[in-house]
């Protein structure tokens, strides 16, 4: 039996019966393998990259030293550790002084990301493995001109004096956050004591950095979280790079979705080619049965054949997937700004298991049909397999898809939603396909002979053709969807950080300086946002009830929700800031005068249970101010503009001493304007986020690349489906046309009618695809990716044309050689 199976397998292979099935399966496996390998590596790279935003994988930040048990636990888990201490301090050089943000680091810093230092201010430097040695400090470029120093000169910090030996050009965890105000001095942790700046009551930030394997980190996080004091918080890589977080999340969903589409497409191709394989072996089985083969014999025969196919395909597919991924990375390597870590073994398994599931759910049902082949078929050709098995085939294919989707996404609700949505779309499209075919015949009645032949043919095999249109349509639709979503995702990311977005923030601007800063920026051609007044203040009570300090530090660190009573930056404005949107209530008039009103950001309002009409009491500089909530507003947080949770109406903060803030864009060449600004207004603090923006841009570039790449892979799967689908219908068509040829139809008539049939099929399929794609893109963009949807009119032109073109070309190319053969050889081929 095994020998027979092997013989049949070998013969089928030589006769090309298995090529398409094997190819579809290999495409499925290699697509999944490549995508998972690539995403796996990219994800590791991105985690590393976002880890560099906090210079570690996890950070505990605290205003005082934390207990030793944390470090002991980390050591026990094999995590590497580092410590930093940040404080604000005056730096003196003879008669000049400057307020600086000092960070003292140990020899392990940074655990992730790189320090870049150089010999001269404002020039390029090179990565260094650790910070300054004891007895030396490094300073940011602009501190040199503002203190009138050259590298090597001494500065005084507190009670000690240090030579500023190198220029600090980049530190990984410089990040945003207003606490990082002031130009940076980097020093060694061992020198802090000598400065004597650390006194009881000084504002200090201790940061404990940890890095290691994800599993150990998770364990550590679970262990440390509940043990932390109220004023300490644990920060993960994700939270450290919030502005990238959204983009990353969307990219992940996209890659996931792309992988899924690839598998479903390949699955359909597998089902189609298995279907063809089984119809072509129907007679085989019938003959075998008349010769006494039992259903069990047949089962084991084809089980063996399919196991061999499955194993070959998974092996070859994994290898191809691996090589493809290596190739892609070699090609894209120079474009990917970070070094990609080596992939794990898991993606290989994912690919193999996917291949087996695909084979089982998509290929076995058509095979099951084989076992039921009636030996009567040997005598009467019209004996067909029972219909129940068809239902089984769909059920199994659906089940397999569902299982794979669930496995990939790990989210049952999303899976069920997507899946049932897909079913509904498919059902509706099938109905429309039937209708197309019907109206096709009505048109065909009045047409010439090629047309009549083609459309009559379509009508005659109505059921098969409707299914085929649906298959073509779905494949084209998925490709269109992918393309559209990809385009809007990438566009959205590029918009997110528009060119010339503000990359510097200026804080602590005294009211007296506002006018001169404004003119200085204008004089230097710097594009700046309006200057907003800013004052620290906290909410004391809401509707007379004292606001509770919220216990949950983790939550406060993760979400953007602050603790209600803690200090916040307040501002007032007559106009709604750009990219803010009032969602409840109304913004006050430009010329509003009257009792204080306040506008609250939506998430802040929700998490603190603040509603329109509530009366809030603020404490500002020890005095109280009460204001009524007049509107709730949404804010685009990652637009890198001054954003506020709380905005008061004009005049309400009039008596309070406030400072101003703004943000502006400096091109690399304009960087020296900073010095001028700071020299003229020494009290002002400037926050440089240009490095951060660069980092975000680099991540977005990587992610976009990944998406382009996945799209190409899916395209391959789509082409596979089209090919399989054309192939699947070929026998029937060829038999018909061979008979026509025998009856004397000219080659031109046959070819013409074939082309028309394929073009028409493709056209209808493309039209279906446009309908489906429009709907799916609408759902995806609004529900999954949170993008703004706008209909794509081009789709309705591109879809049908693409369909007609693709199917027409593939169909005619596949049939051409057969049409030019003599009808006898075609009939013999098909016998």
């Amino acid at each position: 039996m095994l020998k027979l199976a092997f013989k049949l397998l070998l013969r089928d292979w030589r006769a090309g019966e298995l090529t398409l099935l094997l190819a579809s399966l290999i495409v499925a496996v290699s697509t999944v393998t490549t995508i998972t390998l690539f995403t796996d590596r990219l994800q590791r790279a991105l985690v590393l990259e976002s880890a560099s935003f906090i210079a570690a994988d996890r950070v505990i930040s605290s205003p005082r030293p934390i207990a030793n048990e944390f470090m002991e636990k980390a050591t026990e888990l094999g995590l590497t550790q580092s410590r930093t201490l940040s404080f604000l301090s005056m730096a003196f050089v003879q008669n000049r002084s400057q307020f600086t943000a000092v960070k003292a680091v140990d020899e392990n810093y940074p655990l992730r990301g790189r320090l870049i230092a150089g010999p001269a201010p404002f020039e390029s430097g090179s990565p260094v493995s650790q910070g300054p040695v004891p007895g030396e400090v490094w300073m940011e470029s602009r501190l040199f001109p503002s203190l009138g120093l050259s590298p090597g000169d001494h500065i005084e910090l507190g009670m000690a004096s240090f030579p500023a030996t190198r220029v600090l050009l980049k530190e990984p965890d410089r990040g945003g956050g207003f606490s990082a105000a002031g130009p940076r001095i980097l020093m060694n942790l061992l020198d802090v004591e000598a400065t004597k700046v650390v006194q009881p009551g000084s504002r200090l930030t201790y940061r404990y950095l940890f890095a290691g394997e994800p599993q150990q980190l998770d364990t550590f996080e679970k262990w440390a979280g509940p043990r932390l004091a109220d004023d300490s918080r644990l920060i993960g890589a994700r939270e450290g790079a919030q502005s990238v977080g959204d983009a990353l999340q969307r990219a992940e969903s996209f890659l996931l979705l792309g992988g899924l589409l690839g598998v479903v497409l390949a699955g359909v191709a597998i089902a189609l080619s298995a279907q063809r394989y089984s119809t072509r072996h129907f007679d085989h089985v019938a003959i075998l049965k008349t010769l006494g083969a039992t259903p069990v014999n047949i089962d084991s025969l084809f089980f063996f054949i399919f196991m061999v196919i499955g194993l070959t395909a998974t092996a070859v597919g994994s290898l191809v997937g691996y090589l493809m991924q290596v190739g892609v990375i070699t090609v894209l390597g120079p474009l990917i700004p970070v070094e990609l870590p080596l992939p794990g073994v898991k993606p290989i398994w994912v690919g193999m298991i996917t291949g087996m599931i695909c084979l089982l759910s998509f290929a076995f049902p058509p095979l099951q049909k084989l076992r039921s082949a009636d030996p009567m078929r040997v005598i009467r050709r019209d004996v067909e397999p029972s219909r129940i098995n068809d239902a089984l085939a769909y059920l199994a294919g659906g089940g397999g898809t569902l299982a794979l989707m669930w496995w990939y996404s790990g989210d049952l609700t999303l899976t069920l939603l997507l899946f049932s949505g897909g079913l509904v779309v498919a059902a509706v499209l099938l109905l429309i396909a039937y209708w197309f075919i019907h109206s096709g015949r009505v048109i065909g009645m009045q047409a010439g002979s090629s047309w009549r032949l083609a459309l009559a043919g379509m009508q005659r095999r109505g059921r098969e053709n409707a299914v085929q249109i649906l298959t073509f349509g779905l494949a084209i639709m998925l490709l269109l969807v992918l393309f559209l979503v990809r385009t809007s995702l990438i566009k959205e990311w590029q918009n997110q950080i528009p060119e010339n977005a503000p990359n510097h923030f200026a804080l602590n601007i005294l009211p007296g300086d506002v006018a001169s800063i404004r003119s200085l920026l204008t004089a230097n051609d710097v594009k700046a946002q309006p200057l907003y007044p800013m004052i620290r203040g906290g909410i004391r009570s809401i509707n007379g009830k004292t606001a509770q300090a919220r216990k949950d530090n983790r939550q406060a660190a993760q979400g953007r929700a602050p603790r209600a009573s803690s200090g916040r930056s307040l501002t007032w404005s007559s106009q709604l800031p750009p990219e803010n949107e009032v969602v409840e209530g109304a913004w006050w008039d430009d010329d509003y005068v009257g009792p204080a009103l306040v506008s609250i950001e939506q998430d802040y309002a929700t998490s603190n249970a603040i509603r329109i009409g509530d009366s809030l009491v603020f404490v500002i500089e020890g005095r109280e101010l009460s204001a009524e909530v007049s509107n709730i507003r949404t804010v685009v947080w990652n637009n890198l503009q001054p954003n506020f949770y709380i905005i008061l109406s004009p005049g309400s903060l009039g008596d309070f001493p406030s400072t101003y803030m703004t943000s502006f864009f400096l091109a690399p060449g304009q960087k020296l304007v900073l010095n001028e600004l700071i020299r003229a207004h020494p009290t002002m603090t400037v926050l440089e986020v240009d490095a951060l923006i660069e980092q975000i841009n680099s991540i977005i570039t990587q992610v976009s690349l990944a998406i382009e790449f996945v799209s190409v892979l899916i395209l391959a799967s789509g082409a596979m489906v089209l090919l399989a689908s054309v192939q699947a219908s070929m026998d029937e068509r060829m038999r018909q046309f061979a008979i026509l040829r025998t009856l004397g139809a000219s080659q031109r008539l046959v070819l013409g009618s074939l082309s028309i049939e394929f073009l028409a099929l493709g056209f209808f399929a493309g039209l279906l695809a446009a309908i489906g794609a429009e709907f799916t893109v609408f759902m995806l963009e609004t529900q999954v990716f949170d993008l703004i949807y706008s209909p794509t009119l081009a789709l309705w032109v591109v879809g049908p044309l693409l369909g007609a073109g693709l199917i027409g070309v593939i169909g005619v190319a596949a049939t051409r050689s057969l049409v030019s053969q003599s009808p006898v050889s075609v009939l013999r081929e098909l016998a």
Partner: protein
Amino acid sequence: MIKASEVRKTVITGEGELTILKGINLEINYGESVAVVGASGSGKTTLLSLLAGLDTPTSGRICLDTDRILTDMDEEARARVRADLVGFVFQTFQLLGSLTALENVMLPAELRGEASAQSNASEFLARVGLSSREKHYPRQLSGGEQQRVAIARAFASSPKILFADEPTGNLDTRTGEIIIDLLFSLNAEFATTLVLVTHDERIADRCDRSIVMEAGQIAGAISSNEDQMVC
């Protein structure tokens, strides 16, 4: 050897029920050769397929080899009976296109898991005069040659009963004669019970007796030897 009693076959068609066989009773003895003749559409093929267990009757009882009651068996068991007892020769040859002539002949033995399949098959191919075509695929053979391979395949499994449905229907007269000669000589040699559907009177004459089908019923039997009608 073969016993059918009150065998009826009804099929559901678009226009309602169609009764193809209306109560067939027959008995065929061991080693006998029987021709089934009758007009086209009279139900010959249907009867043959029921007797061979390729299909099941709507009612009635069919029994092969005295104790194998086909009508009480499931598909699995009928397949086993076919493997043990029955050989086929069809009008359309029914060779597996993906196997060579030799492999086609080996097929039944392989299905039974027999070891000496190959030499046995070679021998039978030689018997039908196709030694030189062992490695050829069916599509490289003429119709007559294909039918000879089919006959070799049928006899290679040494069946007790051979069913043949218009074995010469697709062949010219001359080739048909060669095939029939071959069939009868092998039949005689192996003492096989032969049931043969044919339109050709000369072929029917070579059988021990003929059964005449008419509109789903046995209209009569002709014993070839005596050449007279027995009613």
